[in-house]
């Protein structure tokens, strides 16, 4: 078989199996004596549980709840605040109170419908403003507030001095909404008891996270729990921590029942009762002197829901991206994560960056129009460059190729001609956004927190990759096998990469944070280099551990230093035509350029660009998810709509090379980057086409109607 090279165009290793329907997802798996489980959930957003009235349970049927937890009722995500089963009180609609478990799903649904729970209801805090104002009383009485987490970073002079010296201060508030992941496969897991161990088959991004999170419920060693990732049909962050919530409850049930138990969410359940993207409220105050920005103050609020999950880390990334791709002389950026009585928000492609990047890009557009200059020309003056001081007092380490990328995009899209031709309000518009995404965990987190490992096993002429990183549809099996094969000088067909099983693979860290190619890919490249040197030694293993480059300090206590060693960079341009009868917006052109170091597999990268940009355009244009009184108004895929291929045209894409010294073959992260900017470019284009201004997304026709009314 031929030797695989990085530049080769290869067929995705999982393509045929998935296209033929042969891949086995959790819902396809069956076991003898299979039991099913449904969650019994809170139907009030905040209140005391007074009584739980159970119907008579037929033999073989169980109601599992907090009383069945032998040790601590907590899931260990980043903190340990998320209860496996609510007892005494509930904090949000959809909080797990119990499981009904038994052999027949029809009987279970019937039993579930007959469970009556009496509550003493309390007034919920739902929105960010509710949370700030402690509506219904503070969620954290000891702090007398709903602030779950907070941070700030500052650079340069104090902002009051900067404001005092300014000609004017441009202030505005920009809000971004919830977003649902809509992974093709809903959340699902099976628990079994095999050879004295609790074994889980889960649709999940991070098998090792699950093990760590749930072991405390029974107070058992990690080794007594085995997580086997099943084929995972999409995740987007929605299966980073949330599988813990399914698996934790199943573990408690499994400990009682000791039969295979399967739980698969219906789409409506997944839409209403799973984690979401954090809604945000971003207040910017920008000091302008002689037509130039002299300082930016940003106060960022994220709605975290009732439990912390990953919110503090999401908020940090939001704050670190809140100045966009610009270098301003003085900045003060503050973030507060607000607790509310809503379903907890968690990881979602971009992990906090899309909110603030949308806000700063839109804010910059608005300032430019206020000053009467073209937004792109205005932004170009502030683009950060290698060596510039960042808002966390670190530095931009790499060469920034944005000027070259902007040249490509303005030329391909004919931006400058169209800007002149499309007068404001003429019904046509073109918009542009510039963005970045810090690769991998913040600061020295890869070393201090994760300490990732990779292991390669050689047997004859075949090599097996044993890592905990997961394929969830993003193409990582193909990319990683390609890196391994190309480094060893063998064929990709001679490399195996089985779905991870925590009892067999080493912990390479979570499949998140755009770190898989950049960090785990490098670990596999290093292991493969070592293996290649010893190739003739017969059958052997190689294991390597992550090493952080020297000389890039980071202090996690004060958030100072080099937050990211390498960023992905992006430019997106969107052209629209609007229908003034109905306010419908038709996107007529999409152009993008992304600097990702090096594309390990161009086909996969292209797929990520197409998907990320469409997902971002859905976020900006149509994906409306509202929470009223603690309940999501949109409950299914017919009222929460995501774009189809009919909604957006074919895209022009450009990949800018700029090899990254610490990534495999020069590659950096890219899975999240491609989500981070198109929504702002879209809104910019629509603003120009209607000659109006938007301070929130999404902007479906009825919201455009509202904005136009406010202008008149």
């Amino acid at each position, binding site marked *: 078989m031929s030797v695989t090279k990085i530049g080769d165009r290869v067929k995705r290793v999982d393509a045929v199996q998935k296209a033929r329907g042969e891949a086995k997802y959790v*819902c396809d798996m069956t076991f003898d004596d299979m039991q*099913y489980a449904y969650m019994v959930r809170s139907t009030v957003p905040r209140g005391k549980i007074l009584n739980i009235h159970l119907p008579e349970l037929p033999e073989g049927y169980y109601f599992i709840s907090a009383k069945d937890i032998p040790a601590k009722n907590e899931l260990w995500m980043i903190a340990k605040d998320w209860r496996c089963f609510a007892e005494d009180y509930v904090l949000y609609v959809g909080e797990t109170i119990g499981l009904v478990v038994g052999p027949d*799903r*029809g*009987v279970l*649904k*019937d039993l579930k419908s007959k469970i009556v729970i009496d509550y003493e209801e309390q007034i919920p805090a739902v929105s960010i403003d509710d949370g700030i104002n402690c509506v219904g009383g503070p969620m954290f009485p000891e702090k007398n507030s709903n602030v779950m987490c907070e941070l700030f970073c500052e650079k340069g002079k104090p902002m009051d001095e900067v404001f005092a010296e300014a000609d004017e201060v441009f202030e505005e508030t920009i809000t971004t909404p919830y977003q649902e992941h809509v992974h093709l496969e809903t959340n699902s897991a099976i628990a079994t008891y095999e050879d004295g161990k609790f074994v889980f088959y889960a649709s999940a991004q991070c098998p090792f996270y699950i093990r760590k999170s749930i072991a405390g419920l029974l107070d058992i060693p990690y080794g007594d729990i085995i997580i086997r990732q099943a084929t995972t049909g999409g995740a987007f962050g929605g299966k980073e921590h949330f599988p813990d919530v399914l698996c934790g409850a199943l573990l408690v049930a499994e400990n009682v029942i000791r039969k295979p138990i399967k739980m*698969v969410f*219906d789409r409506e359940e997944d839409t209403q009762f799973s984690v979401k993207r954090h809604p945000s409220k971003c207040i910017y105050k920008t000091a302008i002197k002689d037509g130039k920005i002299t300082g930016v103050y940003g106060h960022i609020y994220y709605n975290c829901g009732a439990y912390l999950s990953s919110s503090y880390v999401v908020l940090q990334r939001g704050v670190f991206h809140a100045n966009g791709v610009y270098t301003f002389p003085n900045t003060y950026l503050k973030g507060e994560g607000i607790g509310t009585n809503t379903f907890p928000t968690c990881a979602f492609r971009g992990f906090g960056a899309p909110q603030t990047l949308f806000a700063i890009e839109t804010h910059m557009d608005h300032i430019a129009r206020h000053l009467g200059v073209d937004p792109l020309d205005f932004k170009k003056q502030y683009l950060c460059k290698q060596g510039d001081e960042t808002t966390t007092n670190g530095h931009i380490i790499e060469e920034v190729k944005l000027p070259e990328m902007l040249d490509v995009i303005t030329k391909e899209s004919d931006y400058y001609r169209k800007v002149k031709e499309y007068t404001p309000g003429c019904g046509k518009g073109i918009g542009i956004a510039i963005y970045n995404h810090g690769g991998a965990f913040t600061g020295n987190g890869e070393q201090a927190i994760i300490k990732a490992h990779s292991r390669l096993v050689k047997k004859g002429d075949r090599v097996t990759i044993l890592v905990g990183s997961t394929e969830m549809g993003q193409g990582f099996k193909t990319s990683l096998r390609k890196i391994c094969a190309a480094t060893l000088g063998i064929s990709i067909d001679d490399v195996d990469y089985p779905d991870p099983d925590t009892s067999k693979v080493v912990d390479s860290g979570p499949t998140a944070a755009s770190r898989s190619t950049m960090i785990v890919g490098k670990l596999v490249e290093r292991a493969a280099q070592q293996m290649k040197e010893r190739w003739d030694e017969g059958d052997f293993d190689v294991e390597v551990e992550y090493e952080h480059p020297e000389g890039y300090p980071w202090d996690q206590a004060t958030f100072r230093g080099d937050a990211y060693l390498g960023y992905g960079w992006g430019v997106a341009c969107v052209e629209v035509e609007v229908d*003034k*009868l*109905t*306010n*419908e917006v038709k996107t007529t052109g999409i152009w993008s350029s992304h600097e990702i170091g090096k594309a390990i597999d161009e086909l996969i990268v292209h797929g990520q660009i197409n998907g990320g940009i469409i997902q971002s355009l859905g976020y900006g244009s*149509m994906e409306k998810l509202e929470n009223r009184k603690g309940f999501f108004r949109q409950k299914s895929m*017919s*009222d929460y*709509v995501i*774009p*189809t291929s*009919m*909604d957006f045209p074919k895209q022009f894409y450009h990949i800018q090379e700029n090899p990254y010294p610490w990534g495999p073959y020069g590659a950096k992260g890219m899975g999240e980057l491609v989500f981070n900017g198109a929504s702002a470019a879209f809104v910019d284009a629509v603003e120009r086409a209607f000659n109006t201004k938007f301070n929130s997304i999404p902007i*479906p*026709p*009825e919201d455009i*109607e*509202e904005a136009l*009314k406010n202008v008149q």
Partner: protein
Amino acid sequence: MEQVKCYMPQTLQEALEIRNETHATILAGGSDLMVSKSMGAGITPAFSGPVMLIAGVKELKGIRALPDGSVEIGALTTSAEISRSELVHPLLRDAASRMGAIALRNSATIGGNIGNASPKGDMPQPLILLDAMVVLKSIDSERTIKVDDYILGSKKTALSDNEIITKVILPPQNFTHIFFRKIGMRRANAISKLTLSAAAVVKDGIVVDFRASSGAAGPKVARSRAAEEMLIGKTLQELPEVKDAFLDAWNNVISPHAMPEYRRNSTRRMLAYFIDALAAGHPEGRVD
């Protein structure tokens, strides 16, 4: 879980007998019922009484031109077939072609769509504009009524518990100008936020006929003959004078709850656009 009886008749006569005896729920394409009765994966849908799967009744399928120029559409004709048929009026074809996704259009039927009488259903809106009739048959009778009279409100119809919808009849039309818009939450596979059809016959500079109907506008499709009368008989030169009064009248027809500002305003803008186009002597054909 109680079991329910399920019937699969092969002829209309058989179906009428079953319906008469059991009042079974009629399931055609199943695209609405199987969603509303779904209990989740792996669980039998929860029908409260007997069900009749009527898809095997061949007599209820197909589209035929009648000698008087009318077109007869069998109740089991799918949206996909309607959207492709040259015999069918373009306003109905447009609506049928924008329903749901391809798979749904291949199973959903016209009988089911009007039988379900959802306010957001796609076909009732053009059918009511076209003055379409629906034929309801029972074991011992047959009656033909306007679709507008058949649909009583949201999910409410004039169908008796022993009747079956057998066909829809489109009377011949000679509109010189037509307009159709569906505004969904996205460009394809979306439930309507708002639909509007309008049609006119202009002859020798006079508006001989004018009709409009708004879908997703309230409990049922909104059409107002009183409002339409305001434009009928007017010359094209007179249209600008009566336009605002017509638009105000139309605005009063659509439901205050279902039609918040955006829907109301865009309906008004679209109708104004259509009337302006007529007044400006727009060439015959589509005005959209």
